[in-house]
Every structure is written in C-alpha cells, then in structure tokens.
C-alpha cells in the first residue's frame, strides 16, 4: 500500500507525515483499542500428546486432565487476562515424530510453548528441537533426563518428581518392610535405566543390595523367558514395566511363581490404566505399589483432592465416571494439571505477552521454590530446584488388599531430595 502511495497520488513528504502521525497515534496513551485486541488473543499451548502408540492410555488421561485444568483456568479469567487454548498434536509415542511435532507447533501452530510429554524417549528425542527453536518445553515425564542437565535450558519438569527422587524416597521403606535383597525388572531404555542406576545406591544406603538386574526390551510382549534370571535368594522383586504389555507381565509373574515367590514391590507403571481386578492378577493381592498420586480415593484425603478427582472425572476407584472399565493413570496425570498451573504462575510473574517473552518465562519458572499443596498442587507440596528445572514431591506406597490400593506410607519431599548435578541457569538462551 505505501509503495503504491509513494509512486502516484501522494508526495513523499505527505506520506512521511501520515506515517508519523499514525505511529504517534498507536503509541499515544489514549490509543488502547489495538493493544487490548492483541492481549485478548489466546495464549496457545502446544500439547504433545501420546494419542497413539504404546503411550496411548497415558495420553488419553493426560489429555482429559489437561483439558479439565485449562477449563478451570479459563473460567477463572485465563492467564494475564487472556484465555488459554490447548493445541493438540499426536506424537505416536515416537521420538522422531515427537521432534517433528515440536517443529510443527513452532512453525505452523505458532504456539507460545510446548507441554505435556510423558515417555522419556520422546522427551529425549524432542528436547534438541525445542532447544534449537528456543521453544519452552514443559514435560510431564518422570525420567531423570531433565534433572541430569543433559537436555537444554528450554526443557523443564516442574509438575512431577523424577525417578531418582522417587526411588530414593521408597528405598528405605522397602528395606525396612519387605527385605534387603532386591531383583530389579525394568524396561531397557532411559526410564528403566533411571531405576537401574538410582535404586541400587539408594538400597545400598539402607544396608540392602541389588542381587540381579533384569532388563527387558520395550517392544517385548512375552516375559516368561526373563523370569528364570531372578535369583532364588531374592527377597523382593521390584518391577516397573510400561506400555501395552504390562498386564501380560504381571500375569506371567503369577504363573511362574504362584503364591510362593518373593515379595513384590511394583511401580504402579506396571499397572497404570489396568483394572487391578482383571483376571489373572489375583496373585498380586498383598503386594505393594508406588503411586505418585493414589488411584483409589483414600478415607483421609483433603478437600482439594476431592475437587481434583471430581473435576478430572474419576470415581473413587480411579476409573472414569462414565465408564468403570476406563481406568485412569492417576499416579502420573496430576503432573499435567500441576504443570499448567505452574505455567500460569510463571507467565503472571513474567508478565508474559508473547513469544518475545519466552526467556522471561523460563527465568520466572526457574525462580520458583515452594509450591504449597492445594487445588493447584493436589498431589501435594513440592519444592522446585530452578538449577536443574526439576520438582520434588511426596510419594505414596500402597498395599493391594481386597481388590483396592490402600496407602500405607507417605514419603516426605525431603526423603527424595538430592544434590543437583547440573545448573541450567548458567546456560545462555
């Protein structure tokens, strides 16, 4: 328009005058309409979701939790007066696709940040793309990859505790109550390796030992062939399996040992989204599980937990209120809810206006320390370490009895705290 204007009916001087006047008008204090229009644009959060692939049951519940939290935030006036919009892309629980999705969010959807990923191989695969695109990447994984310092300054995990802290907090209870000779059964990739690497020192500190480590490839669908690797002198089998084959794993464990096997301590990942009363699982009765957040409603749970469960739509058994067979991933999905509220708080602290403020957003998140238990943090109190971009929280140990999981022990935040091995805040943006 301006170049056309210059070429024919207007003189150069009149155009310059006009431009100057327009600029003055826009920047003048009285001219607020445009500014307001811009700030009422939604804040767009790209949700990298495992809608398909082996993480699908988590993805389904991560999505429901995210939408419930986003609705709540919007009903309360959004973030900085702007509504929140969740843009969802399926990553197929695949690292290569994960990186593509991050690029799609940046270049096509123009989101403010990317959020939500669970599976560690997808996080590790996507993190470099987030770093290159300077895109804040708030993951809801559990792996130690963020806290290890091996990713980049754009990757944060403020809503869920990592495996290193989880295993440190449950190890003393295992050694005191179940036994000191432990065999680990874990998936043979990053998430499983965190259990392998951090549980051993944690149990040794309690005078216990790891007598065998059984690594199982993530694509495996049959497990009996691995079970003879469990030594006879094992007191406790510590199992953590993920993906579609989890039910098969515990069933085969039951067939192999019957009722005469070692004690079982499972990370609930082995049974996430699986009905505990499925046929073939009877032998699990009396065994113990780690839970990030209890699946079954507990008699003494606070009001904000009631509120959270009701808002997300799960019943007292931890299944969807619409379908009792649709069992939730309640031990992990709270991380989405809490992370969204952390993002909200950080955006408000940074007075976030748009992608130009991404750096301020990350700095505001890094500055966080205490997160009080409540509606925004229904899983419990948390401490955030800005240097390693990692939150620390409380964990539950539950006993499976009478077809339901009852919490028998709750660890403190301090039980899981460890010395930071990295410092993202020293990295340049």
């Amino acid at each position: 328009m301006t170049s056309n204007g210059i070429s024919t009916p207007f003189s150069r001087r009149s155009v310059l005058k006009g431009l100057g006047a327009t600029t003055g008008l826009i920047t003048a204090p009285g001219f607020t309409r445009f500014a307001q229009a811009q700030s009422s644009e939604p804040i767009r959060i790209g949700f990298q979701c495992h809608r398909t692939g082996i993480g699908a049951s988590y993805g389904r519940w991560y999505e429901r939790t995210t939408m419930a939290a986003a609705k709540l935030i919007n009903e309360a006036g959004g973030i900085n007066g702007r509504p929140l919009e969740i843009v969802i892309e399926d990553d197929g629980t695949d690292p290569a696709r994960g990186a593509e999705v991050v690029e799609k969010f940046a270049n096509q959807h123009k989101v403010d940040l990317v959020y939500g990923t669970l599976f560690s191989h997808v996080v590790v695969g996507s993190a470099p793309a987030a770093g290159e695109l300077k895109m804040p990447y708030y993951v809801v994984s559990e792996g130690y990859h963020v806290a290890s310092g091996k990713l980049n300054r754009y990757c944060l995990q403020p809503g869920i505790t990592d495996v290193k802290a989880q295993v440190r907090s449950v190890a003393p209870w295992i050694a005191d109550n179940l036994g000191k000779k432990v065999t680990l059964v874990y998936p043979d990739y990053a998430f499983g390796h965190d259990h392998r690497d951090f549980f051993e020192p944690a149990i040794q500190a309690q005078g216990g030992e790891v007598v065998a480590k059984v690594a199982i490839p993530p694509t495996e669908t049959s497990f009996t062939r691995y079970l003879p690797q469990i030594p006879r002198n094992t007191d406790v089998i510590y199992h953590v399996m993920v993906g579609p084959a989890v039910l098969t794993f515990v069933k085969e464990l039951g067939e192999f040992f019957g009722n005469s096997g070692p004690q079982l301590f499972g990370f609930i990942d082995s049974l996430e989204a699986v009905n505990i009363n499925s046929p073939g699982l009877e032998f699990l009765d009396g065994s113990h599980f780690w839970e990030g957040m209890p699946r079954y409603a507990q008699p003494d749970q606070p009001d904000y937990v009631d509120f959270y469960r009701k808002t997300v739509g799960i019943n007292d058994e931890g299944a969807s209120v619409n379908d009792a067979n649709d069992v939730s991933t309640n031990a992990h999905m709270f991380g989405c809810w809490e992370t969204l509220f952390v993002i909200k708080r950080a955006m408000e602290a940074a007075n976030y206006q748009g992608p130009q403020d991404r750096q301020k957003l990350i700095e505001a998140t890094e500055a966080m320390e205490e997160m009080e238990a409540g509606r925004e943090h229904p899983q419990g109190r948390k401490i955030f370490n800005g240097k390693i971009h990692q939150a620390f929280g409380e964990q539950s140990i539950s006993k499976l009895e009478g077809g339901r999981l009852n919490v028998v022990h709750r660890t403190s935040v301090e039980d899981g705290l460890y010395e930071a091995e990295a410092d993202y805040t020293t990295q340049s943006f």
Partner: protein
Amino acid sequence: MGFGPYLLLATLEGLVTAAVLSLMALGLSLVFGVMRVVNVAHGEFFMLGAVLAWYFSSLVAGDPALGFLLALALSPLVVALIAWVSDRLVLSRLKYEPEATIVATIGLLYIIQQLALTYYGADSRPVEAPFTWRIQLPWFGYSGYKLAVIGASILLVALTALLMMRSRIGLIMRATQYDSETAQAFGIPVRRVYSAVFALGAALAAIAAVLVVPIRQAHYLMGQEPLLLSFIVVIIGGLGSLRGTVVAAVLIGLSDGIISMFFSPTLAKMLATLLVALVLVFRPQGLFGTAAR
C-alpha cells in the same frame, strides 16, 4: 535355576511361539503358493482376529470359556469375510500383478490398522483364557493354557494338511497353484478359488490370533512382529510348501525361545534374519520349496 529346567522353560516358550507362527505362516504361504500374492497385510488380519476376539468374548458374561469359544468360532469367519471382500474389491481388479498387489496390501495394512485404532482404540485389552490351569513343576509354574495352544496348533495344521492333500477343494487349489490357465481350461473357477484361498489364509492368521490373545492381549499394533517372523518362516521353509512352513516355524520358534532366553531376543531376531539371507543365497527356493518353473 539349573540348566535343565532353564532349557525346558525355553523350549516350552519356543514351542508356543512356533505353534502360533506355523498357523500364521501357513496362511501367508498358502496365499503366495496359490495366488502368487505377497500379502503384506497378513499381520493386520492377525491383529484383526485378536481385536475381534476381544469384542466377541466381551459379549458373553459368565464362564470365560463360552466367550472364548464364541470368539474362536466367529472371529476367523469375520476376518475371512473381510479378506474375501478385499480380494474382490482390490486384488482381483489389479489382476494379481505381483508389484501392484504388494503396494495394494501395504495400503490394506494401513487401512485396517487405522480402522482398528479408530473403532477399537489404542489400548491393549485382555481376553480371559478359557481355563487357567497352572502346572506346578518342581522348578517353576507354567500356564496350562499355553500347552493347550501348542496342542490346538498341531491339530489345526494337520487339518489344513488334510484339506490340501486329501479333499477335492485341496485338489482344486493345488491345480490352480500348478497352472492357473490350464485349471481354468478344465472348468475350475480360478477367480473364486483365489478369493477363497485369500479368505482361508486370513482365517488362519485370525485363528492364531484368537489362540494368542489370552496370552498376549489385543493391541492395534500387534500385527507387525508376527508378520516379519512369518515372512522369515516362509522364506526359509520355501514359499508355498506346507511341510517347509511347519519345519521352519518350529525351527524359528525354538531358536527364538532358546536363544532369547540364554542370550537376548535381539540376537534371536538377528540370527533368524541372517538365516533368511543364507537361505536366499544358497537355496533361493527355500529348504523345502521347489525351484520356480
């Protein structure tokens, strides 16, 4: 656990794999033998069999054996019907051109997989075994159902062999396999035989899936690995050879069971694939196949 029991467990596990694999590979081999169609969608017929087994068994409350029997009866029928329609709508229109049918069955693979994802979902769901006997050996417990799968598979392979060698339908199928033009000249409805063979091949995959689903659960991505293993089996055994398929399935199943237990599952797959390469180099027609005429 001592070496003996360890080997016993490995052998049992290997035999279960071999049982499922022989049924599955038999279907693939039959389709190739008679129709010269490399059916890349075979794994998806397997998956469909498992998913339908979940659906049919969930219709029946009460004794799990009833639901399982219903699945065993209906699931292969429905899969056979879908295969028959696919043959009529797609393969026959491509005049069974080898290159075209490979591409078409890859397309079919994606269509079936996405339909399963859309209507069944991304979850894995269990089907209750018709019985849950647990056999307690001195060293470990073993699933009675898994042993039954081995037995059922032997029975079904024998039935298929009888059908091929002793029945009139088998004779027609073999005639079509040897020379379809001459068969047609003798009044054999070759196109109908092709549709029937394609449906039978898919039904065999579905039966294998119904047998496996109480052990492994139904999942929309479960067709990939058995497809690869069946290709390995039919290449080693010789495409179109029933005897070769069974021998190769037992060989691959046992080696998978034993090698993956004593070493690693990846090594078992590596050796199986290496064996394919060796067979292709030194005996391209397979161990029991006949050279192309």
